[in-house]
């Protein structure tokens, strides 16, 4: 076994060069890259958590706004229903009034017509009576004669009584 100082020194230098090269070319760049990647992962995780938090906030806000909107919509709906009911009532009343007015008008027209017809009938009847009376009396009966006839009949009726 030869132990030679120059060979030991040579191997120390040789190993030193290898150590330096491995550190400079392999270890440091890889560690730097791994650290950067780890940092990126941490940053991405942070960003992801932030986005998740923002999303949750947005969801909360959305549900809050939705419930508020629903509440307001309910209120408006209720109000609209009330208004609609009032309007319906008014319309119904108006319609009823109109119908009543129309009916009254029709009734009035009918009454007028009835009265007119009654007068007409009375006239016709009177005319008939005149005609019958003329036929019975054998002479024309005018208005004055008719009145006299009636007065005469009434007087006879009064005597008889």
């Amino acid at each position: 076994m030869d132990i030679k100082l120059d060979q030991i020194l040579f191997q120390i230098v040789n190993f030193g060069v290898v150590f330096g090269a491995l550190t400079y070319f392999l270890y440091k760049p890889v560690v730097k890259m791994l650290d950067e990647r780890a940092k990126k992962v941490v940053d991405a995780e942070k960003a992801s958590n932030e986005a998740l938090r923002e999303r949750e906030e947005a969801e909360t806000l959305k549900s809050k706004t939705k419930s508020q909107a629903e509440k307001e919509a309910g209120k408006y709906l209720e109000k609209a229903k009330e208004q609609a009911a009032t309007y319906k009532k008014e319309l119904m009343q108006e319609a009823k009034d109109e119908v009543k007015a129309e009916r009254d008008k029709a009734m009035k027209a009918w009454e007028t017509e009835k009265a007119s017809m009654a007068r007409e009938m009375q006239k016709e009847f009177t005319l008939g009576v005149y005609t019958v009376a003329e036929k019975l009396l054998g002479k024309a009966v005018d208005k004055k004669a008719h009145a006299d006839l009636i007065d005469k009949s009434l007087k006879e009726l009064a005597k008889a009584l």
Partner: protein
Amino acid sequence: MSSLHISISAEPVAHVGSFVLTNSILTSLIVSTILIGFAMVAKMSLRSKGKPSRFQAFIELIVEGFRNLVRGIVESDHKVERFTPIIMAFFLFILVNNWFGLLPGVGTIGFLEGSEPKISGIQQVNASEPKADQGTENVASSENSEAPKFVPYLRAGTADLNTTIALALISVVLTQVYGFSAQKFSYFSKFINFSSPMNFAVGLLETVLEFAKIMSFAFRLFGNVFAGEVLLAVMMFLVPVIIPMPFYGMEIFVGFIQALVFSMLSLVFFNMATIGHHDEH
């Protein structure tokens, strides 16, 4: 070649000035080149945007795996960032060196050093008589003393005691550096403590322990890897087919475990050095 070649120390394959380039150093250089190349390719292939490639996923798996492993022991982010690169470097360097020694051709392709070869197989296993020039013990011997010696071009880097001592020295020195930087001068009270005779004795033991760590680290790694190489060489020599395969599997596992043991022990020592006596309680 029908001989069994086992050498306890690395053998020279070239000379660069006065520096002897051994086969284990050559392997270590190749391994270092592979690791540096891998690191450079890894850096170039990194993409921070889009879907990462499979290679990038593999790289991230390695680095993140080491970080988590270290974090499980030291529990402090500052220490994790400080210790992980060196622990990763220890592990990868040792692991690739260990496994490189198992590749076909490593330890088997080489050249004959000396005069004409007259090798006739196993004659003796002579580990007690290292050659003065290179400290090698060849199990394969020749019929005459001038027989050429087989020298492989490549040998697992961690199968050389010089490499393991270098790694152990780095680990132990870094332990002191981390301890001093964390505790300043109070760190040395662990070694030099005059508060009581008992503490002084403990301090001496701690000092001895630091040197023992170097020996422990170096010989554990070297012993395991070298023993594995010997085992494989013997098995290959005895039955060249089928039989060595389970041993190869075992050596792959041993190579991984030894790299892990060295790294984890270093990490534990680093961590202990940065924790004061009061913190330990």
